[in-house]
């Protein structure tokens, strides 16, 4: 049976919370998995501004000077790498999370976002070098 890395929905009504789990593909979503690799909280948290830098897990100031909201992910990177190494197949949302953690090639939306980011950075660098030269 195929071993998959996937999300198991816990939490409450309107308050989803996911365990990132390694489980056999045909078992029920919330059944006991082979291993829990981490958690994913899909509700964005407000970034709290603190006097001395960012607060506990608070977001960083973006380009606009605003604090960006953030989502919490906890992951055991070593165990995730092991399971990928022995052929566990991530589901699409799990792939998104693992690729952001740098364990997989970005696919789906992550790749698109990273491409856009890179282009924006390139553009900014070009414009700054142009102004510096002139």
């Amino acid at each position: 049976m195929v071993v998959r890395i996937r999300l198991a929905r816990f939490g409450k009504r309107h308050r989803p919370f996911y365990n990132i789990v390694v489980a056999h593909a045909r078992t029920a979503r919330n059944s006991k998995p082979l291993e829990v690799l981490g958690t994913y909280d899909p509700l964005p948290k407000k970034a709290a501004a603190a006097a001395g830098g960012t607060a506990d897990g608070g977001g960083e100031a973006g380009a606009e000077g605003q604090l960006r909201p953030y989502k919490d992910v906890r992951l055991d990177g070593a165990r995730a790498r092991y399971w990928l190494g022995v052929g566990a197949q991530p589901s699409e949302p799990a792939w998104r999370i693992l690729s952001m953690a740098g364990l997989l090639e970005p696919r789906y939306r992550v790749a698109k976002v990273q491409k856009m980011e890179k282009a924006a950075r390139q553009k900014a660098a070009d414009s700054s070098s142009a102004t510096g030269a002139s």
Partner: protein
Amino acid sequence: MPPRIGTAAAALPGAAPSRAANPSMPKGGGARAFSRSARLATRQRSAMWAWINGAGRQFRRPAAGTTNYLGGGSNWGGQEEGEEGADAGGRQRYNKFPFPRNRHFQSLPVLSEELRDGIWDMVVNRGMSVREVSARMLVGVERVGAVARMKEVERRWEKEGKRLAHPYANAILSMLPQTPYKPVGGAHPHEPINDLPVHQATGTQLFHPTSESRPFTRADAGRAFAPSLLPADQRIPHPELIARERVRLAGGSAREARAAEQEAASEADKLAEEKEKKERETREAQTRTVRGRRWDFKFREVNADEVAGNERSPKGVGWRYGFPHEDRKKGQVKIATKVE
């Protein structure tokens, strides 16, 4: 059987006063006007009326600014006059025992509204450190922090147009002893501010063999109890006051004492700042931020093996299996430990 008419009043001379002499006794009783049976005036009941019309008269209408406890006295609260003591007028200035026979029940003073406003003003408007305000107002460090936070919440609510329960607060405060606000000339002590908190690790009895030839200091004692336990000198809330007293006892001038105090305070502040910075850095080192479109993703490294064993360890990763939620269970403390 001999007739028993009119025996009660005669048996207790001076005790059960007649209705004409005692206007406070309940009126009415018209139905009993023709009754020829004796009044049921026990000794205790008559003593009660005697007290109500005599010594207890002063409690009927409490004067403003008094707690109206049975001992009398004003609602001024403070450490040095916390004990009962009669002044020239024969009234106690501050009585902390609302029930005179129960000496274990003490009504300790609370911070007055003016004092809380003063503390908030010092912390927020004048930018004094919490430790400094605590030392000056003689209020505990934690209490100063709590007052500053609560006042902020109060101001926010006022801005949002929420109604505050002022009548309730006033009614409660009028019945309790309070520590008044004295901005100049030394504050009224509210509580001991430099008490050493008893660390849980020091609660156990410990037999620790040491060599007589080597010094065994308080730092060593702390280490013997727990490896991470700091010595008492570093755990007290106000190390700067100790430094000041040391200089004063050694015969230093007031200026030298103040300089030592400021130096110790800045050192303590620096230590606290460094600790906080270190904690922040470790937190940031464990966290990796990946930028997304609308929000960031914060990855924190965890150890999946912590769930090992019976898989019910509270340190385990994620939502646990076969373990019911306890958030609706009785006795779960849900008080927020931080404000965002």
